[in-house]
């Protein structure tokens, strides 16, 4: 044993010595070390994706969405109370329920404000993963979402509350399917992919997939950039009214949030949707082009604050519900989203991770944990549905319990009571943008602070050249 140890030590020593010598003496241009600054310059993720593009010649389908953190959640903090307002006594239960579509014939009442995001069977997840998500959600008293798919009987049976997407592929868009849903979400886009078209090639379509999507043999599954049948605003308004009349369940709109948010919401309100799902730029996907994920959309935090402000201005705040989604992982982020105006949230990536958490030992180190759950994964057959459902249920329970603890500390008796005034901000620009008070200074000093530092916040005012009508930068 000692002999082997000495041999290994000597081998390591020799290798490192040679490595250091080569790095020291080789010209930089042919030095192996050039990989370090080059990788740092390009970024490890960009480098690998660059290589993938060069190898495959097509957009690379990166799973689970952007790795960039656009929303500065860490710059918002909750305000506990002690005397000014008393914390909630611990024997008082915190109301965690939320109702979507209060004014509909069949409102959707959830026991917790966290739902499972739209992740389609086939396009994204395996049948067993979808069933496990539905079971886990039902155990926690919440809803799951079909994603852009047809109606899968097993998912419908496992989900006590099922939100279905009226989708751009057209697979849920017939009365015999959407009449069996507890809410309908008209899917016009998603945070990770905008409104871009998507195609699942026939080689990735199995018999069960074809059955749920009602595809013929040899047919690709295509998600169009536009919803079939909706070519102008009036078409959309008519569609919403038709679905509301026919079903009586809440009918909402899902969009990828963008700087045009208010213009999109204006039309949604004209159509009298019951809820709007705003999917921020951090939204996940089973696989999408990195450019769509990293370079397009509006961060979730600002999507929520802007949507809430718009609804307040239009006097529909809390009447038309806001469902927030996109990169929400921690209970803190979820509660902050609610404080900014969201009635409920969807979680996708976090739900899948919770689902496989106990079972990831089955895959690593030779396969990623996602191979248990994605439709084309190599190990989907080994996923234990009930175990996964229990993991998800425990995760949801723990998240909501943590949110309840924060609510108690802020003297609230319902999660839906948590508001902007329960937050403070650590960034003046964030304060200005969201209306959350700046934590650096007292409530009374806010006006003085912002008036004294007005030059930093003066709005951009483009000078319009009167004759040409073109816009130029201020001098």
């Amino acid at each position, binding site marked *: 044993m000692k002999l082997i140890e000495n041999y290994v030590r000597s081998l390591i020593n020799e290798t490192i010595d040679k490595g250091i010598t080569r790095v020291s003496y080789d010209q930089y241009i042919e030095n192996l070390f050039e990989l370090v600054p080059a990788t740092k310059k390009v970024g490890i993720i960009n480098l690998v994706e660059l290589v993938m593009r060069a190898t495959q010649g097509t957009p690379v389908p990166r799973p689970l969405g952007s790795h960039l953190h656009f929303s500065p959640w860490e710059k918002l903090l909750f305000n506990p109370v002690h005397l000014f307002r008393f914390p909630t006594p611990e024997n008082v*239960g915190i*109301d*965690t*329920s939320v109702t979507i579509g209060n004014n509909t014939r069949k409102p959707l*009442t959830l*026991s917790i404000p966290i739902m499972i995001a739209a992740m389609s069977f086939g396009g994204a997840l395996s049948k067993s993963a979808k069933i496990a998500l539905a079971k886990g959600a039902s*155990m926690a*008293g919440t809803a799951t979402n079909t994603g852009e798919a047809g109606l899968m009987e097993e998912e419908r049976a496992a989900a006590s509350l099922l939100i279905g997407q009226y989708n751009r592929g057209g697979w849920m868009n017939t009365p015999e399917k959407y009449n069996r849903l507890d809410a309908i979400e008209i899917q016009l886009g998603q945070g990770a992919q905008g409104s871009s078209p998507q195609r699942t090639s026939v080689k990735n379509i199995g018999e069960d997939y074809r059955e749920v999507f009602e595809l013929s043999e040899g047919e690709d599954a295509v998600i169009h950039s536009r919803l079939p049948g909706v070519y102008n605003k009036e078409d959309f308004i008519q569609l919403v009214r038709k679905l509301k009349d026919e079903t009586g369940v809440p009918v909402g709109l899902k969009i990828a949030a963008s700087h045009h948010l208010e213009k999109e919401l204006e039309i949604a309100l004209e159509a009298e949707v019951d809820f709007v799902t705003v999917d921020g730029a951090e939204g996940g996907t089973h696989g999408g082009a990195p450019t769509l994920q990293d370079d397009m959309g509006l961060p979730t935090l600002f999507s929520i604050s802007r949507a809430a402000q718009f609804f307040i201005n239009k006097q529909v705040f809390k009447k038309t519900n806001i469902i927030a989604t996109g990169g929400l992982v921690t209970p803190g982020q979820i509660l902050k989203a609610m404080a900014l105006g969201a009635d409920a949230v969807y979680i996708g990536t976090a739900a899948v991770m919770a689902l496989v958490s106990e079972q990831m030992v089955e895959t690593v180190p030779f396969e990623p944990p996602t191979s248990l759950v994605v439709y084309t994964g190599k190990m989907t057959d080994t996923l234990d549905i009930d175990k996964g459902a229990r993991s998800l*249920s*425990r995760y949801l329970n723990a998240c909501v319990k943590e949110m309840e603890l924060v609510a108690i500390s802020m003297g609230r008796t319902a999660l839906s009571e948590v508001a902007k005034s329960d937050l403070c901000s650590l960034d003046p620009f964030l304060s200005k943008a969201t209306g959350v008070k700046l934590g650096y200074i007292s409530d009374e000093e806010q006006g003085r602070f912002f008036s004294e530092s007005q030059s930093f916040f003066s709005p951009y005012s483009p000078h319009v050249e009167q004759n040409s009508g073109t816009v130029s930068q201020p001098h």
Partner: protein
Amino acid sequence: MDQKELLNTLSYLSSEISRIETMAGTLSSIEKEHYNKLAGFDHNELRDVAVEEHSASRQLGTIKQMCVSMNQKITNLEESLKNS
């Protein structure tokens, strides 16, 4: 069904819903207590039961809220009937 009979029926529904609301609230508190007790055990199966109890407590809380909403609708209906 004449108006008086309709009002009586609504009143009956309202009182029964109030009973359900009270029962759901009580059961929710009991389930929450069970969760608090069970969560203290260092045993995986008991912890799973605790999580189920907690979830049941929340769902009973939700039933209570649904009852409150239903009673509100019944009150509105009664008022509009009386005014008609």
